[in-house]
């Protein structure tokens, strides 16, 4: 039954892609309709008028997203079913290679990621129709968008179902290649084509690393079999296990966006349509996390503590690097993309913590770290989707993604701004929202470091906890900047001054749904953590029996006397304190508010240009963490008489990632150099080519004889 639901989710997302193919086939559709209901003329007429020429494209779009929504519902049901029942379902599909049918397995880990994807595509299905409605069908055909979205989503779902390496890679490639076309969707800009190309190269290099990792495992499995069952039973020496792990880390890390493999992320996410960037950032990165968990915790099995240390250090670098780069971005979607790098880094840190505790023989603490990582993955999917979808709405209104063109939107777009605020508070890990709970769990895990015997690890983990604390504080600063510059203050551009709240109910509903879930899981995290314990149980061999032992109000990850958190009680206290102060102070109408001009020091004439901008806000950070970026800051002053006019000064700021010049450009240069030296073989002279063939022939004859 659960497997049937899971199949249905794949099928419906696939169908939604296929349906988009009918975008320009109105005549054939009408013919088909006529053929199908020759007997019921009234149906025919109704369908005819429903599919009228002018609204036909919209109908197809709506139907396509509706199918996606149904797929989402099925995925949510399958995920919840799998998580609650804790069943492991194994099946085979008569597809694929003749001697290797596709093996399918649906366990609680797959179920959790099914749930994440389900929620995300359900939200997107409500958002999509309003978002693509105004697209120009000639330049940006829905046919392409819908088809590849369907393939992309079904690819992600199939990755979660795969139980052999071949099937896994086929699904993985389907996901990568389909998402390439989505990134390249708005291909009229050369920057977008470049972004898509970088994405494709990195996705394929990552895929090669994953294939090699599977290959290493398979060469130790019985008879070289590629089913996960056989890979699970393979016995590897420590060295080979580490080789496989490193390959998998490179492969999945490239997809997940670990620093320094993250460079495709800030290029690809801003150029894709918003609901696609939401899916890529919120969900596809999680599929990479799934891949790494499946590979290391499930297939490799014997975790070594060194892997945990590697994951923690890489994770901490990604978290700090990601948020510091995010802070400097004036482009909204680039900022969100970098913030995804940060959150993936946090997830990897928590996984590393879990690995260390597991390898050192503390499964209950390992389960705690593992649950923290999974919960953060779940939370990140919620609030990052919300942020990207909100960014899409704002982009439609302001016609720009530059934060410095916005401002004052809180008054123009009251609903979007509230929902966006909730997302900002969740991602800044403020209490009462879901992001806080996962970080709290991570701190609780890290504080149990005293049980370890190794002095180096005992000192390393607190340093990592410090890095996590710094990341959280930087994230808060970054999102204060984001919300403040975008929504508060005075409008900085004409479009921002004229922006209006979106009229599409579906778009607002999808945002509200995600915001509601952020708040719900912030107040009742126990709901999810119990389910996540079921995921940890088979993989780590230990659940979280104590997490909600003290009742549904309380969250006690280790034991009640060690640490407890009760968000409902805290919420109640907040409401009481806020309510009393509000009621007491507001009751006298004689001292109601008086509106007046803003204080302008008596000079008069405050203009929007006097406000703090994005780069002004982050200026102290730029000075303090100057080494992190490549900052190119120039101030040009026109020589002239005093006093200087504002127009005489030209300020330019350009900030770049270190990883391009330090890592990728050398690689690019050496590839070019090798290519050039190889190209010397190609003289363009036919006699030389003939002699190549001749010598090759002689060489081959020598080899054969």
């Amino acid at each position: 039954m659960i497997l049937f639901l899971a199949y249905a989710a794949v099928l419906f997302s696939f169908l939604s892609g296929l349906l988009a193919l009918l975008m320009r086939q109105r005549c054939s559709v009408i013919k088909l309709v006529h053929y199908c209901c020759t007997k019921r003329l009234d149906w025919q007429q109704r369908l005819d008028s429903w599919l009228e020429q002018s609204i036909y494209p919209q109908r197809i779009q709506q139907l396509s997203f509706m199918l996606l929504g149904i797929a989402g519902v099925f995925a949510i049901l399958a995920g919840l079913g799998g998580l609650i029942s804790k069943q492991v379902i194994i099946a085979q599909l008569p597809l694929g290679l003749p001697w290797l049918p596709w093996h399918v397995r649906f366990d609680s880990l797959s179920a959790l990621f099914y749930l994440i994807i389900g929620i995300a595509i359900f939200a997107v299905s409500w958002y999509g129709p309003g978002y693509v409605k105004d697209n120009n069908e000639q330049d940006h055909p829905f046919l392409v968008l819908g088809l590849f979205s369907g393939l992309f989503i079904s690819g992600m779902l199939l990755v979660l179902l795969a139980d052999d390496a071949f099937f896994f890679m086929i699904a993985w490639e389907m996901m990568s290649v389909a998402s390439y076309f989505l990134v390249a969707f708005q291909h009229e800009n050369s920057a977008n084509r470049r972004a898509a190309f970088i994405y494709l190269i990195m996705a394929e290099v990552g895929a090669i690393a994953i294939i090699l990792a599977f290959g290493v495992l398979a060469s130790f499995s019985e008879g070289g079999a590629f089913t996960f069952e056989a890979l699970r039973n393979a016995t590897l020496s420590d060295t080979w296990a580490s080789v496989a792990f490193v390959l998998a880390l490179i492969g999945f890390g490239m997809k997940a966006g670990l620093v320094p493999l993250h460079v495709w992320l800030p290029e690809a996410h801003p150029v894709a349509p918003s609901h696609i960037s939401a899916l890529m950032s919120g969900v596809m990165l999680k599929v990479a996390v799934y891949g790494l968990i499946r590979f290391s915790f499930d297939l490799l099995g014997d975790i070594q503590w060194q892997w945990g240390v590697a994951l923690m250090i890489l994770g901490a670098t990604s978290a700090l690097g990601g948020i510091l780069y995010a802070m400097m971005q004036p482009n909204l979607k680039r900022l969100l993309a970098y913030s995804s790098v940060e959150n993936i880094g946090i997830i990897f840190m928590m996984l590393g913590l879990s690995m260390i505790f597991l390898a050192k023989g503390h499964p209950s603490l390992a389960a705690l770290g593992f649950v923290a990582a999974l919960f953060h993955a779940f939370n990140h999917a919620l609030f990052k989707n919300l942020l990207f979808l909100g960014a899409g709405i704002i982009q439609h209104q302001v016609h720009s993604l530059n934060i410095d063109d916005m401002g004052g939107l809180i008054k123009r777009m009251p609903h979007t701004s509230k929902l966006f605020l909730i997302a900002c508070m969740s991602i800044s890990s403020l209490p009462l929202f879901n992001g806080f709970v996962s970080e709290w769990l991570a701190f609780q895990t890290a504080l149990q470091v005293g049980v370890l015997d190794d002095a180096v690890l005992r000192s390393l983990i607190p340093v990592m906890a410090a890095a996590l604390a710094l990341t959280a504080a930087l994230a808060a600063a970054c999102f204060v900047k984001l919300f403040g510059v975008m929504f508060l203050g005075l409008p900085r551009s004409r479009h921002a001054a004229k922006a209006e709240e979106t009229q599409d109910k579906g778009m607002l509903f999808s945002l509200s749904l995600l915001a509601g879930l952020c708040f719900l899981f912030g107040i009742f995290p126990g709901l999810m953590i119990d389910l996540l314990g079921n995921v940890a149980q088979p993989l780590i061999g230990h659940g979280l029996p104590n997490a909600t032992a003290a009742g549904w109000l309380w969250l006690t990850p280790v034991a009640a006397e060690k640490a407890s958190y009760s968000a409902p009680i805290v919420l109640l206290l907040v409401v009481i304190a806020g309510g009393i102060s509000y009621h007491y102070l507001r009751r006298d109408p004689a001292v109601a508010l008086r509106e007046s001009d803003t204080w302008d020091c008596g000079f008069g004439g405050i203009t929007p240009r006097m406000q703090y901008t994005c780069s002004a806000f982050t200026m102290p950070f730029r000075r303090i963490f100057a080494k992190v970026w490549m900052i190119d800051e120039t101030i040009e002053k026109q020589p002239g008489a005093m006093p200087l006019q504002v127009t005489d000064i030209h300020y330019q700021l350009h900030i770049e990632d270190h990883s391009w010049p330090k890592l990728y450009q050398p690689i690019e240069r050496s590839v070019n150099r090798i290519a050039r030296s190889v190209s010397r073989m190609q003289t363009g002279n036919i006699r030389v080519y003939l002699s190549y063939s001749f010598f090759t022939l002689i060489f081959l004859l020598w080899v054969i004889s």
Partner: protein
Amino acid sequence: MSILLAMIQTLLFIALAPLLAGWLKGCKCHLQNRKAPSLLQPYQDLLKLTHKQPVVSKDASWLFIIAPYIIFSATVIAISVIPLIAVDLPTAASADVIVLVGFLAFARFFLALAGLDVGTAFGGMGSSREMTISTMAEPAMLMAVFTLTMTASTTNLSLAIGHVLAEGLELRPSFIFALFALILVAVAETGRIPVDNPATHLELTMIHEAMILEYSGRHLALIEWASQLKLMLYGVLIANIFFPWGIAQTLSLPALGYGLLAILGKLAILALVLAISETLLAKMRLFRVQEFLSFAYLLGLLGMLSHIILEAAR
């Protein structure tokens, strides 16, 4: 009974915070050869402000109006989990010390947003600086607090202080590092000299005052009160974590009375120390604050490492 006590304790905390501010101001005045205002002056100021009609900029949004209430209640939640006069505090279980830091961040988040809301350069300046300083201060504070929680192996503040009391007077190097780290953080977070000058209204130097420049009337009263609460919060944290003696461990009336006297005495001494240091020191340049706070961070980290290496070794 203990829940009632928790409520009384929170109310007492809220009521005493302006008194601490008044005492601090009085000490500073005496040290600087000025005539001190009455100890009760902060109460009169708050009362006056609540009766004034607030003037709100016409460019302000709903966030500007609601922010003071959020800031005040978030700070109240933070103080409600700190043992003031008695160790046994049931509210400490619902929110541990990490949540406390979280609620301080919550209040700061809205304070910074409110600074950006009206769209003046002052507000942005204040918000940007406040977020910079808190970014450096928050991890340092967590490190200092983690030293305590790892010693007591609980993040529940009430249980942790109980643990320190049960251990008795013992010289722990980690606690000395953590104490200094927390003092430095407290100075930065409450906007005292040498990081920020609470008495300044000079645009180039102010941080906290720049953010709340547009506030008036009851809104200003709430924000002022919240920052007084925050000052007392750090004072009580330092006093009760590192010098917990005197705090009531039973719920008998004499013990509670003794506890109240003890905390008042400890706070008075701490405020006197702060007043002396504020008189002796000058305000730092803004870009020296990072060095100050990274030093606090380093101390916190050293405290934690010395706990792990020296004290928890087996």
